[in-house]
């Protein structure tokens, strides 16, 4: 019964969607704003990856909000799971040698890969979020492979905080010294397609990368804790 009603409702909604999608033909999008970013993004931000320039410069404020959302989730998840958390000693069966060694071996490599991704965010696809996620997955590997190993909570908290503070600090610096706008790209743009270009973008992405990495790792950490 519920399914029939649900399907009926969804059909009505689908009808509306079809009506409106007639007006948005696939493949020929209305790119007034987007086209300007493509045309002038290189000069205005100095990033080769236009998506990055949009994410961090044109719509940098969104990204600030976005890292805040992740921060909220990490903090909130901690708050939800931390209440009456029992600090019981767990019997941890140690992983097999092969697994352990493999994890130890892979861990820095994955970290490095993640770091590469977020440092080169303004040049190649990828950036702070993707890199951060990869960094976090390195930690997941450690949690799963090398049982009992934990990142230090204070350390990850400090990284989180610092990442956020750097983002805001750069934004405020833009407001105070640079172009008198919050988050304005006040550093020299450099030469296109080189590592040291695009002004504040790489710095922001590195901050985001660390922040996202530690937050996602923290999320997994909190969830895994006392689950065994």
């Amino acid at each position: 019964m519920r399914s029939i009603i649900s399907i009926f409702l969804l059909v009505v909604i689908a009808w509306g969607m079809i009506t409106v999608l007639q007006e948005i033909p696939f493949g020929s999008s209305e790119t007034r704003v987007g086209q300007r970013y493509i045309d002038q993004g290189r000069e205005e931000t100095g990033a080769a990856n236009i998506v990055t320039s949009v994410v961090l410069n044109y719509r940098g404020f969104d990204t600030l909000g976005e890292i805040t959302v992740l921060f909220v989730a990490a903090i909130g998840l901690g708050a939800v799971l931390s209440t009456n958390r029992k600090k019981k000693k767990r019997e941890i069966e140690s992983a097999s040698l092969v697994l352990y060694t493999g994890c130890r071996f892979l861990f820095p490599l994955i970290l490095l890969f993640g770091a590469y991704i977020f440092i080169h965010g303004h040049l190649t696809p990828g950036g702070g979020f993707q890199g951060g996620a990869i960094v976090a997955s390195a930690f997941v590997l450690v949690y799963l492979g090398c049982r009992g190993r934990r990142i230090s909570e204070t350390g990850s908290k400090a990284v989180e905080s610092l990442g956020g503070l750097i983002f805001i600090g750069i934004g405020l610096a833009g407001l105070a010294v640079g172009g008198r706008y919050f988050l304005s790209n006040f550093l020299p743009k450099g030469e296109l397609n080189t590592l040291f270009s695009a002004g504040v973008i790489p710095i922001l992405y590195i901050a985001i990368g660390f922040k996202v990495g530690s937050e996602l790792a923290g999320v997994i950490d909190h969830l895994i804790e006392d689950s065994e």
Partner: protein
Amino acid sequence: MMIIVVSLFVLLMLVAAVAALIFKDLMSAVIAACMVSLIASILFYFLQAPDVAMAEASIGAALITAVFIVAIRRTERFEE
């Protein structure tokens, strides 16, 4: 002929989504959802959005699945 490939992917994705709907075993459902994410990330790539494809693959497919699995481990596995 790109469009045929894409259509097949879309079909596969929808099938995976329906599978996630049907499976009573939550673990299987999560894997099906993971499939959805993975195929979506391939579709993102086809849509000339490599940034998004990377994000979807690393976050949407990998991390979320991990979180789901952990959560299922801590609760119960079968939907009654």
